[in-house]
């Protein structure tokens, strides 16, 4: 059992997932409203530790943003309105998932376009080489055929 404990602890850590940053005091009494707040929180980037959402972050600013999200929801804002308000302050950067619009087309479609171009180049390249190969290799001459036959004969012999 004693040897098993660290293993169990490790498994527990992995299964448990990241700790929640949302403090009990922040949680709204209305569970549906709270669920909406959590959903919004996961979509908004913490400006301090930029690779976490405000839902995950322990930074003070993330906490204040979470509280603000909840206040606005309680005041009757829709999810969209809350997110738009924060975006109007911090820009698209605050969204964990950048919106699809002309400025971000390169971001969204760039990788696929580059991959597609590579694939196309590869296909064209092989098609051209394949075409050259089928017609290019000269058939064996009679002398060569004879040599091969002799070699095979020697092996068997």
């Amino acid at each position, binding site marked *: 059992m004693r040897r098993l404990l660290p293993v169990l602890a490790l498994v527990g850590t992995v299964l448990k997932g990241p700790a929640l940053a949302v403090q009990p005091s922040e949680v709204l009494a209305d569970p549906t409203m709270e669920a909406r707040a959590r959903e919004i929180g996961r979509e908004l980037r913490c400006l301090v530790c930029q690779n976490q959402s405000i839902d995950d972050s322990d930074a*003070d600013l993330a906490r204040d943003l979470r*509280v*603000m999200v909840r206040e606005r929801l309680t005041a009757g804002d829709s999810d969209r309105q809350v997110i738009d308000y924060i975006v109007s*302050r911090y*820009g698209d*950067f605050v969204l964990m998932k950048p919106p699809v619009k002309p400025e971000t087309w390169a971001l969204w479609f760039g990788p696929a376009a580059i991959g597609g171009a590579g694939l196309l180049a590869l296909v064209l390249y092989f098609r051209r080489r394949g075409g050259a190969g089928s017609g290019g290799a000269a058939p064996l001459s009679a002398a060569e055929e004879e040599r091969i036959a002799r070699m095979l004969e020697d092996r068997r012999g």
Partner: protein
Amino acid sequence: MTDAAVRGGLVRRLPYLLPLALFIALAGYFWIGLGKDPHAVPSPLIDKPVSEFILAPLEGRDRGFTSADLIGQVSLVNVFGSWCVACRIEHPFLVTLKREGVVPVFGIDWREKDRQAGPRWLAEHGDPYTLVGDDPESRAAIAFGVTGAPETFVVDARGIIRYKHVGPVTADVWEDTLGPIVRRLQAEK
């Protein structure tokens, strides 16, 4: 070999140079990207009016400030905190600005955990602010899209945010960027 033949050879070899050219382009792109500060997030608030806020006074003072106080003159809005190390760097320069009466500076004392900390800090280092407000829950800070301290905004006489500076306002920053902007806006009136 004739010139044309040399050129022909180069043209035939060009496809082999393409990967190198691509590599150089990408490397240049990443090189520039690496030099950028990820915390210098472009603000969507430039050329937008300051949104309304009301800040309570610091403990022991009788006046905080509101967004309405920013109307009527070009001003700086400076976000600071006694906990903020970089704010100590800019503080002496802000005091100089106040002494010379160049431009009013409004202070947002951001996220003090202790209500005495802000007043104590100002008593110790000097008070460069025309008005200071206490912002323990980031009300004004979020209205300005603040991500860290210190940050300084140039607000024109109509209450429109014209410029955002991230990091300490030093004499150099003033000479190079903020000063010219403030002078230009003051001349606009």
